[in-house]
């Protein structure tokens, strides 16, 4: 009962916030306070809504926005998967070897500071001009925060779990799998959250700068809308980006959290 009430509160607060935001937007758009070209640079909600439909029905260059989203998502998933596996590999090896840990720690600190887009020229020279470059940037975006979180999580595993694990004969990989990873789940989940957000943003900004026309993604779509002064379509695409972000947050990450750390009473 309590839960239900709180849920209703949360929902109401959110609905009010969104409604107020949209109201404000519409007011600004209609008031003309953005200058005489208001409808061009600050389109009203109806126009953006229409553009949203147009994005999916008509799209750009003969392809619906779905195609662009599909391309982006494919590259994103590929990069996320590789990035997450690498993050576990790095953190796992760091727990085994002290030297590797020291190096790994430095590498993570250094690379985490580099914006992926700034690496683009180097990446192009090394890897060539392929959609793989985008995958590389997604990996770059997800790997370091993820590895940092997993490593912190491993270091924070209470000694008693490790000893209990050793006591039942776990060692090496089985200890990693049987104790370290489940015990660090809350860190891993927050690493996933940060990594996902970074990867999603990194993907779009990379696509805006570096567009491969044979595999056009959502960033390229935004850039085209901008170049062609189709601002309503551009805002509509931003809305789509937000919606995808929310779907992943509430459709994938929250359920993962719910059936792990929340269920185990381990949330920090």
């Amino acid at each position, binding site marked *: 009962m309590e839960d239900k009430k709180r849920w209703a509160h949360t929902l*109401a*607060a959110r609905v*009010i*916030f969104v409604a*107020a935001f949209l*109201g*404000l937007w519409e*007011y*600004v758009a209609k*008031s003309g*306070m*953005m*200058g*005489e*070209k208001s409808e*061009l*640079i600050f389109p009203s909600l109806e126009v953006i809504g229409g553009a949203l439909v147009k994005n999916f029905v008509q799209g750009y*260059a003969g392809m619906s926005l779905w195609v662009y989203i599909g391309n982006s998502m494919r590259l994103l998933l590929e990069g996320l998967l590789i990035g997450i596996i690498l993050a576990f590999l790095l953190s796992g090896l760091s727990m085994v070897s002290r030297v590797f840990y020291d190096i790994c720690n430095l590498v993570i600190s250094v690379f985490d500071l580099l914006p992926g887009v700034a690496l*683009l*020229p180097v990446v*192009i*020279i090394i*890897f*060539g*001009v392929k959609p793989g470059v985008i995958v590389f940037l997604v990996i770059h975006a997800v790997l370091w925060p993820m590895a940092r979180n997993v490593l912190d999580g491993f270091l924070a595993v209470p000694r008693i779990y490790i000893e209990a694990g050793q006591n039942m004969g776990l060692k090496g990989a089985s200890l990693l799998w049987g104790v370290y990873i489940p015990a660090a789940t809350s860190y891993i989940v927050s690493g996933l959250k940060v990594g996902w957000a970074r990867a999603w943003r990194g993907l779009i900004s990379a696509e805006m*700068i*570096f*567009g*491969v*026309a*044979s595999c056009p993604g959502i960033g*390229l779509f935004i*850039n*085209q809308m*901008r*170049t*062609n*002064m189709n*601002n309503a379509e551009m805002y509509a695409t931003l809305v789509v980006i937000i919606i995808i972000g929310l779907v992943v947050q509430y459709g994938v990450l929250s359920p993962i959290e719910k059936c792990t750390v929340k269920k185990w009473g381990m949330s920090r």
Partner: protein
Amino acid sequence: MKKYVRLLAICLGITVMAAGCGNSGQAQKTSGNQAAQGQAEDSTGSQAAEDEADGGNQDADNTGGEEATLNIAYQYGLAYAPLSIVKEQELIEKAYEEATGNKVTVTWNQMSSGADINTGISAGSIDAGFMGVGPAVTGVMKGVGYKIFTNLSGQEHGIMTNDDRIQSFEDLIGSSNQIALVNIGSFQHILLAMALENAGYDPHALDSNIVAMAHPDGMAALESGNVSCHLTSSPYIFKEREEGNLHEIMDVAEAWGVDGSFIVGVASERMHDNNPELYQVLCDAIAEAVDFMNNSPEEAAKITCEFDGNSEEDELAYIQKSKYTIETKGLFELASFMARTEFIEEAPGSYEDLVFENVKGD
């Protein structure tokens, strides 16, 4: 339930307040102008945006002694060289004072793309900008609220390849060879389409071979063999032509030579209508700088080489290979081509739809 009503009221309150601020901000502009003078010089970003009300459209009937402001947006590179002269020699400031007895504060904003400048002008924070003919035509036809007030320069363009097997478009169409150019929908992209059409192909036949990369990145990618072609403009095209292992597919260079309009200046209709003196001064300043470039290129190179990051000799050589003129060439033809090949949605009815009355050319 009461709580929500209150919350809603607060939200609405904020909305109204924000709206009020917007209006009062504008109202203050005329009275607070004097005070703002000192700051105008370092006005950047948001402040520039707030300054929307003044800028070029200084009311003509304002009392004397009031200072006008002019926000100019430009981009980086050789094609924009005359602007370095205008800026360094303060041609606008001097001419405006001579013509009206008043001062003008000119703010130069370097921006990274025509699309950014288009947004700036439509938001009212920029009065005049310089960009490729592609985004300029797009902006005019989209109703951003500006027209072309001058031509600035023509440059050489070309497509280079590092692959001996590629001799013509025939070898590219249907292949997986990649063509680097600065952006999809950019002037270089339009040139590719034009060259394709001239050669008898579908103008969009190579669209899926394009990779969008900034000029220097594209050059690096071509030299390292990561792309097989690079369609670029001077000075990069000059540098690439000097490389022994690259060769050129001539169609692009033939489609649009150095004489054709490449970079043009656009001015907001607001400034053109409200402050004709300032508009005229701006036109004259560009004309003067262009003359200076053509009459004394050595001196010009001394001034501009620093901005463009070239040695003085290189800069002079590049300037002499460029064409600086205030007369447009091929502008209407290009705009019509863009409409026909769906780079823009709407075709201009006439040359005069694109330019202000003082501009000469075609």
